[in-house]
């Protein structure tokens, strides 16, 4: 048992972080962060590059020691009971960690063996993982010569080979195609339904919409922590106008100029696929002015309407100027 005085409640929580801080020299990568994740929850751990997401996960896994504060997984202290943590969790790291000179199947067998699966269990899991990852026919391909997307699929399979209770996925869908991205999330939800707790990082905000709760970290600090729908209400300081224009790039230039010279008080104007999302205090008030401005410069406006903010809008808004400190 750890020397840390943890309460019975800590035991029930799959993930618990208390005042966690990590400094590298005089640089603070994670700064006094606290949160917990409930059983069976899919928790999105989001933030810009260098925010401290991976560092947090590495402390939860006991791979690096916190400078101060605590991390518990399933009631085990990550810093002192690291082996117990490892036995019960799955981890897909952001960096590729499978063995390139083993075949796809050998990698699954290796990770299954590490976690003490019997040969019967192994045989069954190999078949299951090959099928869910869509790697049929590639069982015997050297992992190093699999394409990037296939490597990610295999890595996910290896991370969950032993049916862990808690799973840490650090950018699992980076580089997988739009169709398999959806399949990854179906799998994540399937696991959650079976009671597995998932902490996942991603830079795809459309995926993050699928999380039950998300935490935003930036500059090492937790700046928001809530359900997606709550965040959309509390973190957006402005309304979103979605604009469809004949020449989106030109429309962008015109609107950016209008922002710069203060003609329209945009908080943000950004291309969102082929459309433009403009954030401003009062969308209704400026709708016509925007339309006139664009038409005046020969840009046809096919649609312009106020839409609910997406999580991407919220991300940009939170990261630029954190509204609430949790």
């Amino acid at each position: 048992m750890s020397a840390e005085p943890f309460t019975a409640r800590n035991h029930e929580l799959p993930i618990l972080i208390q005042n966690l801080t990590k400094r590298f020299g005089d640089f603070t990568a994670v700064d006094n962060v606290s949160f917990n994740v409930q059983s069976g929850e899919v928790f999105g751990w989001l933030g810009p590059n260098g925010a401290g997401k991976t560092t947090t996960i590495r402390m939860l896994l006991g791979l690096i020691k916190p400078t101060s504060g605590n991390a518990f997984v399933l009631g085990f202290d990550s810093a002192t009971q690291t082996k117990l943590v490892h036995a019960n969790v799955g981890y897909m790291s952001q960096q590729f960690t499978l063995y390139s000179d083993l075949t796809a199947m050998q990698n699954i067998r290796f990770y299954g063996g590490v976690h003490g699966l019997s040969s019967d269990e192994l045989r069954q899991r190999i078949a299951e993982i090959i099928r869910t990852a869509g790697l049929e026919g590639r069982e015997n391909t050297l992992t190093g010569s699999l394409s990037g997307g296939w490597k990610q699929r295999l890595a996910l399979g290896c991370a969950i080979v032993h049916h862990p209770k808690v799973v840490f996925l650090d950018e699992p869908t980076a580089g997988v195609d739009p169709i398999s991205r959806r399949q990854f999330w179906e799998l994540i939800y399937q696991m959650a339904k079976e009671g597995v707790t998932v902490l996942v990082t991603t830079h795809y905000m459309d995926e993050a919409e699928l999380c039950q709760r998300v935490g935003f970290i930036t500059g090492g600090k937790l700046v928001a922590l809530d359900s997606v729908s709550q965040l959309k209400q509390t973190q957006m300081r402005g309304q979103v106008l979605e604009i469809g224009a004949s020449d989106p790039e030109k429309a962008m230039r015109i609107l950016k100029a209008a922002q710069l010279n203060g003609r329209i008080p945009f908080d943000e104007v950004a291309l969102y696929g082929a459309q433009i999302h403009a954030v401003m205090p009062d969308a209704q008030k400026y709708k016509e002015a925007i339309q006139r401005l664009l038409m005046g410069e020969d840009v046809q406006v096919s649609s312009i309407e106020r839409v609910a903010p997406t999580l991407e809008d919220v991300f940009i808004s939170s990261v630029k100027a954190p509204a609430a400190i949790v």
Partner: protein
Amino acid sequence: MNQFAISAANLVKEFKVNKHVVTAVNGLSLQVAPGETFGLIGPDGAGKTTTTRVILGLLSRTSGESSVLGFDSMNDMYQIRERVGYIAQQFSLPPNLTVMENMLFFAGVHSVDAEEQKKRIPELLAFAGLSEFSNRLAGKLSGGMKKKLALACSLIHEPQVVMLDEPTLGVDPVSRREFWNLLGNLRAEKGLTIFICTPYMDEAERCTRVGLIYEGKLIVDDSPANIKRVIPGHLLEFTPSDFSSALKLCNEMNGVLEVQTYGEKLHVFVDDVLKCKTQIEDALASQGIAYDHLREIEVRMEEAFISLIRRQKESVEQNEMIGEVR
């Protein structure tokens, strides 16, 4: 000399694995004019990376032709390397060099003179958001920061052509926009030709032309607008309270051509907007499913990609069935 920045004709690349042959690129032809932004998209393992590497001369081709700026991929590798910036999908920067040392190293490799270095390095570091980290070892950067450093290094010699293999993998949404703005500026100011492989469909949207590769063959090659136009029907979007019931209901409905999931939203392709919108509203109401924001939206590359791949798979399967019947 031909007038194309990048060209490939009947390009074939086979890998010999054990005793059998993997055809990664299977008779692919494409042409990219100077100043174009060409996006190569396709499912995991379709052949994007292999195509890129063969065109660059990093892999030898099995047959066919390929060239960059009129220089043959196989015979004029040195000329190509001088003029082209490349970021590999799985790259590694020297981890024991600092950010600044990496920049200087790449500047040296490409013989960028000292004057130019003094001007460009700070610009590129600022773009990459790494100015304050110039003394940090590359190995200690976060995943996304490494990627940004690689981007900065690939632009140090002001190449005429860049070939980028999933350059924004792991890059956060805000920086991804900044990266595309930078590419846009380089295109406008210097006429940079851009060839980019990407799993992000919002990025494909920003290309002047997109090639869709499937099992080593280019099956679509057109502007994003034209590609999207090919998808039949109109697109309705809404957010149901009960996702799986709503999905089932739409799948079984008359007039529905295709249903896709997008985060917590459903995307339903229908033949007739007015008719189907009412149908869906009635059906949802009768099953007591609440919903939000049911409206027609424009088809994006994301939906087009899924639809095109789905149809390609179906037609391949159908041909196989016809073959079996015969």
